[in-house]
Structures are given as C-alpha cells and as structure tokens.
C-alpha cells in the first residue's frame, strides 16, 4: 500500500448495518472516482465486522479496509482518528468523505487538523473541476469542489483545497442519493491489524453509559410530509398537522424556527441544518420559507403552501398557494379528503 491517490469513504457501522449516509456517500464517491479515474475505497472501523463488505461492494467500492477491535466499538474520537491518520499517511488518498453526523463531525476535524488537510462541513454538492489560483495564477486540474451554504444559508460557497491532501468533506444524511451499482460487484478486502494503527494510550475517553434510541420519526422516507413553521403558532396547533398527516398517511416535519420555538421535536427539522427530503407531496403550513428551509425540501414533487401572508417567500416555489390561516385550512383538507377518498 503506497500512495494510492484514491477516494475513500469512512463508513459508519452500528447494529450490524452500514449507515445510510455512508451508502449515499459511496454512491456519490463512485461517480467522483470515475470522474477522477481512481479507485473508490471504503473503511470500516469497529467490532464484529464479519461480512460487512457485502453491504458495501454493491455500491461500487473497489477496496474495503476493515479495522476490527473490541475497543473500537462504540465509536470514540481518538482511536478512530488515529486509525484514519495513520492509514492516510500511508496510502495518501486524494479525497476523504464522511457523514455530517455526530460521529463524522467529531472525527473529521480531528483528522484534518493532524494532517493539515482542509475540511469542509455539511456540503450540499460535490463536483470535480479545475481551479486557477487568482493570486499566483497556478492552475489545478481535477479538484474537489466542496459546495456548501454559508452565512445562515443566505449564500452558497464553493470551497477548494488546492494544495493539501486529502481533500475532506462531510455531507448530511439524505443530501446525496444512494444507489446500488451492481448487486454482484465484488472488490478487494484488506484487513488491517488494529494495533498497527491505534495505540493503547489513544483509548482515553471511557463510555460509562449509552442509550441509543432508534428514532421513531422517519420523515426522510415519507412520501407525504405536512410541515409546520413558526406561523403554526403553538405546540397545540401542531397537533392539527399530526391529524392531517395521519389522515393522509404522512409524517410531520418542521422548520428550524418551529423547532427552536419548542413546537415540536428536533428530529422533525427539515432544511440545511436538519434533514433533506424529497416527498411526493409537501404541505408547508405557516412556513415563511427561509432559504435554509427551502434548500431541504425544494425537490418535493408537489408543494402546497398554506400561509396567511400571500407574499411569503415559500409561495414562489409552491405549486398551490392557499392564502388563509392554518387553523382554518387544515381541518378543511382533512374533511374533504375523508369525503372524497374511498
């Protein structure tokens, strides 16, 4: 294993499963690796990794590195960082992608700091392209464009790391689409000895208690979303949205403002700092439409906006705009759905 200049995805593994966000990144990574003409590699660090590669290869990975040790699960910062740092010094990947999750956002900065490589958080798009340094005039081919919203979502910045490797980026779950390339695709498995990459002293932080709850809320995969904003007005009024969602067989989502106001749980937040969704039907109730929210739902097939402000920004991207109060309109939607559906 010498300088391989490949693209590598850090895969999160819990409860016997590779995280969705990692599979999404493998899909994106496959297409970027094709553009670059390099291999797509994946790394899994943890315990009980038997056959984990079977979940990864269908997404087109050429190589899967496995680092197995009882102490590497559950995730802690220093040991996982040590594995990546030492492996990257050895194989020198040109790009490293990870999920913008509790783990990726803890791990990425630590690795990038040690390797003095650039890291861009929460990218919403990744592309390959050339770059010309405006000061030196130096030309670069095939850099990773790390595209992300900045300044509270009011602008979109394209970031490049011209001289440092690996070019690192994190991406939130749901932003990229996961897609199996070939269910029968196989690649190479490389088992790395944990003790070659992580020292006993790296295990400094001890987990003494851990409660992981599977979120019961699954807005990402719901075909119908009834989302509420600050304009819904109260926690009680949010119950109305639940009624509509239950009637239509959908889920309830929310804007950041509604979550910050305590109207509903954080797990329901849609937007750049929450989940990105693409349902068949999106009913926006009392949502004004801040850019950071719109970015997380604009790909919905049909958008209905219910707002008492006829000029709410969200109306410009809506297919149907109903001007009125949420408390009046939502019960009518329920009533006429019940009347007309069989």
């Amino acid at each position, binding site marked *: 294993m010498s300088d391989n200049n490949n693209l590598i995805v850090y895969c999160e593994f819990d409860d016997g499963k590779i995280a969705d966000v990692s599979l999404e990144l493998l899909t994106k990574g496959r297409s970027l690796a094709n553009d670059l003409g390099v291999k797509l590699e994946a790394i899994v660090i943890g315990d009980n990794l038997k056959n984990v590669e079977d979940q990864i290869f269908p997404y087109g990975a050429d190589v899967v590195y496995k680092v197995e040790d009882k102490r590497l699960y559950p995730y802690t910062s220093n040991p996982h960082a040590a594995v990546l740092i030492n492996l990257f010094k050895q194989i020198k990947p040109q790009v490293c992608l990870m999920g913008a999750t509790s783990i990726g956002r803890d791990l990425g900065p630590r690795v990038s700091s040690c390797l003095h490589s650039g890291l861009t958080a929460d990218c919403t798009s990744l592309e390959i392209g050339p770059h010309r340094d405006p000061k030196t005039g130096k030309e670069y081919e095939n850099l990773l464009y790390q595209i992300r919203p900045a300044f509270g979502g009011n602008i979109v910045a394209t970031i490049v790391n011209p001289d440092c490797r690996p070019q690192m980026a994190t991406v939130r779950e749901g932003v990229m689409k996961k897609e199996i390339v070939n269910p029968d695709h196989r690649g190479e498995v490389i088992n790395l000895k944990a003790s070659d990459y992580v020292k006993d002293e790296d295990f400094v932080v001890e987990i003494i208690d851990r409660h992981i709850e599977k979120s019961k809320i699954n807005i990402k995969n719901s075909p119908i979303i009834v989302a509420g904003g600050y304009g819904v007005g109260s926690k009680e009024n949010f119950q109305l949205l639940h009624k509509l969602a239950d009637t239509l067989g959908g889920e309830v989502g929310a804007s950041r403002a509604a979550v910050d106001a305590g109207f509903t749980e954080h797990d329901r937040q849609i937007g750049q700092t929450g989940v990105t969704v693409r349902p068949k039907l999106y009913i926006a109730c009392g949502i004004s439409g801040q850019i950071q929210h719109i*970015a997380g739902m604009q790909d919905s097939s049909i958008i209905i906006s219910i707002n008492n402000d006829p000029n709410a920004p969200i109306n410009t991207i809506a*297919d149907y705009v109903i001007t009125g109060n949420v408390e009046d309109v939502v019960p009518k939607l329920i009533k006429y759905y019940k009347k007309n559906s069989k």
Partner: protein
Amino acid sequence: MSLNIIVLAKQVPDTRNVGKDAMKEDGTINRAALPAIFNPEDLNALEQALRLKDAHPGSKVTLLTMGLPRAAEIIREAIFRGADTGIVLTDRALGGADTLATSYSLAQAVKKIGNYDVIIGGRQAIDGDTAQVGPQIAEKLGLPQVTYAEEILDVANGKITVKRRLENGVETVVAPLPCVVTVNGSAPECRPRNARRLMQYKRAVTPSEKAQLSAEEQAIVDARPDLSLGEWSAAYVEADPEQIGLPGSPTKVKSIENVVFTAKESLRLDDNDEQIEDLIKDLIANHTIG
C-alpha cells in the same frame, strides 16, 4: 479543587435574522446591517463553566475570543454573567482564516494562558455552522475532546464526567483532564447578567479601548487591575505566520453565489370550501394522495 477554566467564544453576525434590509441590491450580504451577537452555543458553554465555578469555589473562568478588537464586547458580557476575565486575540494577520488556521491561532493563545484544567466552547458558531474549531483545538493541544456536551456531571480526581447529546441518543463519558468540551444548544441557557457585576465591571476595557478614554477614566482603569482585559497579537502568542490567516488556511473560497430558487407558476387558492375540495379531488385523481 479549584479549576482553571477557559471558555472559547465568538462574536458573530446574527445570521438567524437576516431580514430584507440585510441583503444589498446586488444580492450580497450587508454585514453592517446584521447585529453582532454572542454566539448562542458559546453562551451555553459559558453557563457550564460558571456552574463548574459554583461547584468548585476559587475557580477562574477566562473567556478567550478571536476576532476584531470590538469582540471585547462579549468578554464584558461574559464577565457581567460571572466570568472573571478575558482575552481577545486580534491581529490583521489572523484575517481570512479557515477553521484550521483559527484553531491553530486559538491553540497558541491557550498555550500562552497555560495551566488550564478544562477548555469549554460552544459546539459551533452560527456564521459557519462547521463545529470544527473545538475538535481541532483539542488535536492541536494533544488533548481528548468531548463534543455535544449537554451537562458536565462531575469533575473529580483529574477526570471529567459529561453527558453528551447525540443525534440518536445520549451517552455519558469520562475523560481525563485537561480536555476540550464543546457544548450543545440543548444544554441549559446561560444565566442573565448580574446587576452588581454589571456596575462593577462596566469599565473593563482592552488596551486599545482604554486608549480612547479620557485621562480621568484611564486613571480609574489603572487603579483596578481587574478592569484590564487582555488584547493579544499573533506575535504575542508566538504564532507561526505560515500557519495563520489566509496563508495558513488549506481551504480556499473559490466562488460565492447568492441562493436563487427557480420560481414556479403557482395556482393561487383562497380559503374557501369549494376550492379546497377541488384541490383534494385533483390530488386524489393524480394519485398524489389516497
């Protein structure tokens, strides 16, 4: 056991309330129209530090911030709420820093302060939302990190016990001191200003602020050492010029665009029964619902 606590904080433009007047006609942001505030999660971090101080009498809370000289405003804010003192790391050479160059600069300042037990900062700042500076400072200082803290449960025998809020649950961890802790917005809110401290410390100033004062006011500051806030340059914290500011930043901004969404031709309905029933019928007919 008394503790030496460093709180990392940032003065940020209030990006949560970007109104129409905050956007210029050409679509770029008018930073001057945005109020500069104490980064919200750094206030949660300050509260955790003040609670540690309450539980460990004799502890010292020092606020460290990097930014423009005016960032001294948030040091005073922190002192009014219970912090002991603060330092603003400010230098033209630090401008244009990405998260890595920022972390290096702050780590140098932390080393200069020295003799610390715990470093506490907010999870992330609202102008960048990256959450990178905390873990990167930990790495630069060779310290363990505990991110997404919701509550510091205990500090004893050289160890800190912290409850962490993860996206899918909670975790309690024990880390050796010194370490870096970053605090989540779900942690308790910061206590308000204390009226007595406000009176006592309203004249706390940095050297550059002091220079603007009259001779009499300067004499008042000189008579009270606790009114002198730190104002440090890059050279003072012995920062390598190659690792700070724009030259020390591996990431470069290639371009910035304003966000433009493609507008659709919307069908406008009023809140009347007939129109709403027709809409529902349409949605059922095209199999969107039902």
